[in-house]
C-alpha cells in the first residue's frame, strides 16, 4: 500500500469523511425502515375507533347486584353496593392497606353506591369471582380470585393474597343520575 499513503496528505481524511457520511446515511435509512415495521404492531385505526366511549344505564342493576361488560375488550364490573358493603369499605383504616386508597377516591361523589372497576385480577389477569349471585366474594365482601387466592374488598381493594394492586377504576363519568359514559 506504499503508493496509497504517499499521495496527497488530505486524501485519507476525505476518504474517511466520505465513508462516515455514507455509513451515517445507511444507519439513518435502516432506522427509518424500522418505523413502519414497528408501528404496524400498534392498534390499527379500526381497533382505536371501536374503543370509543360507551354509554351504560345503571338503573337495571338492583342493590347488591353486579353486572359485567366489555370496553376495549376489557372486562368491567359495575356493582350497586349495599349499605353494609359501603360502610365496610369506608370503615377500613387505609394505612393498613397494601395499595392505600380511600373508598371516595374509587367512586364518584354522590354516586357512592356504584363501584366501577376493571374485572381483571392485578396479580396475573384472571377474572375474580363475586359478581354473580352465589359466587364466593372472598373474606371482605368483594371479590375473590380463584387462580391464586387474592381477596378484594367491597371497594375492589386488594386485602389478602398475592395481587399487588387494587382493581383499577376505568375512566368514566356520570352523564345523568343513573347513566355513565365509560372511556
Amino acid at each position: 500500500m506504499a503508493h496509497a499513503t504517499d499521495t496527497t496528505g488530505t486524501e485519507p481524511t476525505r476518504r474517511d469523511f466520505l465513508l462516515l457520511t455514507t455509513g451515517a446515511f445507511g444507519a439513518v435509512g435502516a432506522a427509518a425502515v424500522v418505523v413502519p415495521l414497528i408501528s404496524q404492531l400498534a392498534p390499527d385505526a379500526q381497533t382505536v375507533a371501536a374503543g370509543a366511549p360507551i354509554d351504560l344505564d345503571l338503573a337495571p342493576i338492583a342493590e347488591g347486584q353486579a353486572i359485567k361488560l366489555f370496553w376495549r375488550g376489557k372486562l368491567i364490573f359495575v356493582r350497586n353496593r349495599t349499605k353494609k358493603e359501603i360502610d365496610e369499605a369506608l370503615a377500613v383504616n387505609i394505612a393498613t392497606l397494601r395499595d392505600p386508597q380511600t373508598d371516595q377516591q374509587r367512586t364518584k361523589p354522590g354516586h357512592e353506591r356504584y363501584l366501577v372497576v376493571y374485572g381483571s385480577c392485578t396479580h396475573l389477569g384472571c377474572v375474580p369471582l363475586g359478581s354473580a349471585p352465589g359466587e364466593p366474594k372472598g373474606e371482605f365482601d368483594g371479590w375473590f380470585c380463584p387462580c391464586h387466592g387474592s381477596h378484594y374488598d367491597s371497594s375492589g381493594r386488594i386485602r389478602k393474597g398475592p395481587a399487588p394492586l387494587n382493581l383499577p377504576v376505568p375512566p368514566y363519568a356520570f352523564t345523568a343520575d343513573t347513566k355513565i359514559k365509560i372511556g
Partner: protein
Amino acid sequence: MSLRLSLVGLAAGLAFAAASPVLAAEAGPKPPAQSWSFSGPFGKFDQAQLQRGFKVAKEVCASCHAMSLIRFRNLSQPGGPGFTPSQVAALAATYTNIKDGPNESGEMFERPGRPADAFPAPFPNEQAARAANGGAYPPPIDMLAKARTYTRGFPTFIFDIFTQYQENGPDYIVALLTGYKDPPKDFPPLLPGQNYNTYMPGHLIAMPKPLNDGQVEYPKGPDGKSPVPETVEQYAKDVTAFMMWMAEPHLEARKRLGFQVMLFLALFAGLLYFTKKKIWSRLPEHASTH
C-alpha cells in the same frame, strides 16, 4: 449480416403487432384525460372537491351503490375530505338504522350510527340489489376507481411509467358518467333496462343516466352562488375524485413519503457511488500491479 437483419425484422414485427388495433369492435373510444389534483408525484386531493363529491355520492349514488369499505370516521381522517370529527359524528347519527345486537333478550336492534360504523349499504346482499334493479347488480363504488381501467396500448403504457399516469380508472369513470348519448342509427334497438353509453365496453349499460344538471345543490359561496357549476360534468368529476379517495385514502401520505424516500435514496446512491470509486481506486497491492 442476415442475422442482424432478422433481429431488426423481429423487433419491427413485434412493434407492428403491438401497434395494431386490438379488438377494435369491442373497445369504445379512449376516455379523455382529465386534469386531477391528485395526479403526479406531488398530487393532493382537493378537499372542497371531495366534500362536493361526497354530497353527490351520498345523495345520488348511495341509493343503489354500496360504499361500505368507508367508515364515517374516514371522512375526518388526514388526507381526506376534511370534515371535523363532530361533523362526522352528527352525520353518522343521521343514519338511525344501523343493525346491532343481540341485546340481553337476544334480539337484533337498530341504533343510530357512530363514527366507527361502515357506511350503510342500500341493499342487504347482491341478490336483493339485483332484485331491486331489474337483475343488474350496482357494484360497490368504494373501490371502483382502482377496479376500472381501459387499455392504454403499446407503447403508451411504457411511457406511463415515467409520466406516472395512473388515473385510468377516474378518467374512465368520468367518461362513463358523461357518456350517455342517443345510440347511433345503425345500433340495434335497446331493450328495456338497457342504456347506450359511448364509453361502456359494448356500449350497453344497465345503469340509467345517473346525473343531471342542477340535481345536487352545492354549498354556496359568499356571493350566494356555488363556486363551481352545478352541471353533469362537474358532478362527474367531483364524485369521481371522491371515489378515488375512497379507493386510495392514503394516497397523499403515500406520495409525500415517496418523495422523501426517493430523495433519500438518490442521495444515498450518490454517496455510495463516490465511496465505491474511492475504495476501488486503491486495489490491494498485488492486484494493482503487473
